[in-house]
């Protein structure tokens, strides 16, 4: 009997194991009941939470997602249903892109009847412009403050971005998603039409179409709070739960005459810095096409660098030229403030004393009548020596534009500098410099730092019916215009650097500009980019290019700018793969002066494999992390303190919801049946010997 007792428990684990397997099957994704209930929305972009020293901006959802009945808002009148009339709050609004403005958003922010928002992109772009950035970008982190040019501080004199509504810098407590795919938007609208439209005068009946958005952010309040919590976790916990990450990446810099990147440049040697930014931002995470605000300027810069490197007597020039591409400038000048900090603390090969002058390119694609404006800082020009050098700089620039289809004009004394990396350098030293833009006062760009800053914004047009290869090689008018600007800049730089020869031979190549514009704005995964990157970087060439600085570095944009610059300004050297990847072992490699890249080469039409080769260039990366995080001054007002919150899952789905009455009826019926069955079982069990009369039992009782 003991054996039997022992074996009684043997099948127990098997049974429970199988039940658990069934439970697991029920909860795993993609099983058929779940597919009957939910339609996932795959092509969406969330709005995430960013924090700085004092505030949090962006959106937040609850930890198990926010659910609401869908309501499609295409006109302003539809909002009344959501805000007052609708009988089934909270609502999840599907907002037409044209209504995504400050007035509507502030109305939605103030009410508790809204549990989330899904925005569609307006096609075509809103004609009146749309910019969720600030009217005065990077205010307080530039050079103008109450101590320096107070009349220019806080955009008193010139509002640079008058279209800006500041939506990106508001804090919303409900999730906001962008619906990128028009087909998914149509599915949602169809569901709304089928179930949610009010019929007659009364509200719609259950079941109703609903949407659930998940975008729970872990960080709260400000950078100070979240970094403090993260550092506590990292110090004391075995499994640290970091809640936010600083925005960081790398600046790309290169010099015309190679310098020792680990040493220090001679203080007598003068350098001219050319700078552009390579990042942008929009309301939604990782949506930052940045055509006019970033790409136009750094593509022009790259073309000018290529043109200068082709000049024969660069090694004879009196002054060196440093081509710098700053990352993170959108968020209070992360890259340029870090470079200035490194220069001051002697961590960079150059020092601020080495800088002879500064030329910056900012938003140069939307020139009005071929005029390019030269902005200078009126406050520093009050110094005589600086004024002389600035005059010289402006004169050289004007001279260089002779013969080109660019006319350079000076902006008057009454105007300050626009938001630019040059302002951070001015904070440290009064360097003579100029910022070249296509706008005189307010931006020409009506979609500054928005999702509408697309190739259409800079008037890039391709004829119909071209294959990707043909589109890559086609030279647009925008490319020609940017190439002219690059030519002017290259010639001016040559003369500034002390070049004596005729500059008419210096020409930027429109074909290169066109290919770069295609690669950085339309399709990163093209044959040219594929041929100039490292073999193991193939995976980074994704679909639509975005130029957000992000927290994991380096981002695609930084990699590509680095490799494009290496390709345009470097030389091909005859080294094998091992020698190229380990240049310190090769004699005469001058490891400190040059960087060696092993690139995979182009694919011949007939061949199936690529022919890789080694490129030697003077392109280097320097870390672009705000000094506030190096110094652990998380509440700093001097350096950028932007961080991005962490999150676990971000997804969206739609489904039908049943009425509360049906749910309660189901529950009550279930409980009633349970109780009845328990009672019946007890009753039958108690009276079993009477109900199921077994003849021999009466015999036993009579015993």
């Amino acid at each position, binding site marked *: *009997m003991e054996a*039997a*007792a022992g*074996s*009684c*428990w*043997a*099948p*127990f684990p*098997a*049974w429970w194991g*199988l*039940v658990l397997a*069934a*439970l697991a*099957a*029920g*909860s795993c994704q993609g*099983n058929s*009941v*779940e597919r*009957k*209930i*939910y*339609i996932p929305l795959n092509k969406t972009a969330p709005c995430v939470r960013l924090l700085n020293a004092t505030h949090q901006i962006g959106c937040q959802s609850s930890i198990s997602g926010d*659910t609401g009945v869908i309501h499609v808002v295409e006109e302003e009148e539809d909002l009344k249903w959501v805000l007052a009339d609708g009988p089934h709050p909270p609502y999840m609004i599907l907002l037409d892109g044209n209504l995504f403005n400050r007035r509507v958003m502030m109305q939605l922010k103030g009410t508790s009847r809204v549990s989330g928002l899904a925005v569609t992109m307006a096609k075509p772009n809103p004609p009146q412009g749309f910019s969720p950035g600030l009217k005065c970008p990077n205010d307080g982190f530039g050079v103008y403050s109450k101590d320096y040019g107070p009349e220019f501080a806080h955009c008193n004199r010139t509002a640079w971005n008058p279209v800006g509504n500041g939506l990106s810098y508001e804090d919303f407590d409900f999730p906001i998603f962008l619906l990128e795919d028009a087909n998914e938007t149509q599915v949602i609208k169809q*569901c709304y039409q089928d179930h949610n439209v009010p019929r007659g005068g009364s509200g719609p009946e259950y*079941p109703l*179409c*609903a949407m*659930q958005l998940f975008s729970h952010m872990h960080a709260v309040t400000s950078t100070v709070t979240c970094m403090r919590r993260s550092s506590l976790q990292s110090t004391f916990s075995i499994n640290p739960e970091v809640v936010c990450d600083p925005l960081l990446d790398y600046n790309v810099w290169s010099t015309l005459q190679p310098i020792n990147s680990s040493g220090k440049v001679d203080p007598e040697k003068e350098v001219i810095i050319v700078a552009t930014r390579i990042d942008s931002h929009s309301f939604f995470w990782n949506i930052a096409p940045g055509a006019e605000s970033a790409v136009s300027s750094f593509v022009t810069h790259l073309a000018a660098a290529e043109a200068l490197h082709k000049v024969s007597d660069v090694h004879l020039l009196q002054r060196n030229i440093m081509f710098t591409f700053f990352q993170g400038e959108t968020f209070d000048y992360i890259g340029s403030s870090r470079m200035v900090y490194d220069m001051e603390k002697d961590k960079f090969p150059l020092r601020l004393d080495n800088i002879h002058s500064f030329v910056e390119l900012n938003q140069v694609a939307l020139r009005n009548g071929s005029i390019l404006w030269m902005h200078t800082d009126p406050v520093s020009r009050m110094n005589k020596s600086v004024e002389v050098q600035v005059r010289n700089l402006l004169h050289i620039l004007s001279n260089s534009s002779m013969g080109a289809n660019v006319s350079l004009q000076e902006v008057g004394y009454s105007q300050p500098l626009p938001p630019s990396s040059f302002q951070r350098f001015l904070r440290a030293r009064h360097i003579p410099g100029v910022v070249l833009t296509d706008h005189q006062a307010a931006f020409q760009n009506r979609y500054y730092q928005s999702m509408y800053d697309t190739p259409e914004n800079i008037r890039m047009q391709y004829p119909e019916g071209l294959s990707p290869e043909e589109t890559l090689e086609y030279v647009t008018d925008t490319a020609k215009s940017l190439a002219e600007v690059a030519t002017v800049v290259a010639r001016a730089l040559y003369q500034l650097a002390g070049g004596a020869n005729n500059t008419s031979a210096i020409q930027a190549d429109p074909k290169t500009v066109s290919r770069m514009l295609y690669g950085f704005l339309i399709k990163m995964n093209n044959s040219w980019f594929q041929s100039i990157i490292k073999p193991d970087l193939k995976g980074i060439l994704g679909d639509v290019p975005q130029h957000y600085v992000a927290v994991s570095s380096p981002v695609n944009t930084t990699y590509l700018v680095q490799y494009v610059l290496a390709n345009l300004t470097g030389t091909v050297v005859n080294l094998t793969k091992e020698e190229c990847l380990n240049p310190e072992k090769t004699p005469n490699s001058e490891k400190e002066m040059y960087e060696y890249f092993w690139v995979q080469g182009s694919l011949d039409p007939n061949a199936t494999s690529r022919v890789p080769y080694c490129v030697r260039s003077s392109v280097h990366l320097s870390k672009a992390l705000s000094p506030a995080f190096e110094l652990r001054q998380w509440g700093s007002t001097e350096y950028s303190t932007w961080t991005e919150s962490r999150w676990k899952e971000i997804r969206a*789905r*739609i*489904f*039908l*919801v*049943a009425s509360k009455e*049906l749910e309660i009826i*189901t529950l009550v*019926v*279930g409980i009633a*049946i349970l109780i009845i069955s328990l009672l019946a079982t007890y009753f039958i069990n108690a*009276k079993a010997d*009477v*109900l*199921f*009369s*077994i003849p021999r039992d009466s015999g036993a*009782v009579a015993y």
Partner: protein
Amino acid sequence: MFVGRETATAPLCGKSRHRKRAFFWLVSLLLASLVWFVSVRLSDRGDAALQRGLLGFGAAVSVLLQELFRFAYFKLLKKADEGLATISEDGRSPISLRQMAYVSGLSFGIISGVFSVINILADSIGPGTVGIHGDSPYYFITSAFLTMALVLLHTFWGVIFFDACEKRRYGCLGLVVASHLLTSGLTFLNPRYAASLGPIFIITLCTGLWAFVTAGGSFRSLLKCLSCKQEDDSRVMTYSALRVPCED
């Protein structure tokens, strides 16, 4: 002492029989799903009518395998019963065949119900209900009722099946298998719930009455049970009256 151990182990072994029976049902389901899976793999995926036919075929194979395993379990229990009878004190096994039949049917029903409904329950926890692709919004509640009918049906079939096997009434056996096949086939009429749930509940009621009669119940015993409180007492008094002289 020996009797005490027997009675102590008897309810325990009843529970183990539950689990063993449930295990048998699971094995039958595993085999049936294997048959269906192999047949789907070998067939043309695109042909919807063929896939539906294969599903019906799979369901029929599953029903037949379940009944086969029920029969196999009956044989196993008969052997165990004889074993228990030989080692018990009074030559009779502690559990009657009827009890075994009931427990067998109930455990088959419970595990079958759990398997049917656990997947649906897990997805009903979320905020959504079925219907966005056009399915009926009453999916959950009808699934629950269907599962209840299935559990009850398995219990009744167990009782009838064991009785039929014991008394070698193969006609009743065939009728049980046929009604199982019919119930399984009726579920293919979903989501026309009136056409599928109605007949299934009628079948449940009829099978329940049949099982009640097979187990020994009758209309008279039901009436007796509803008014039988005094009779019990008198029988007990008689027993105690008989016992008292023995203690002298």
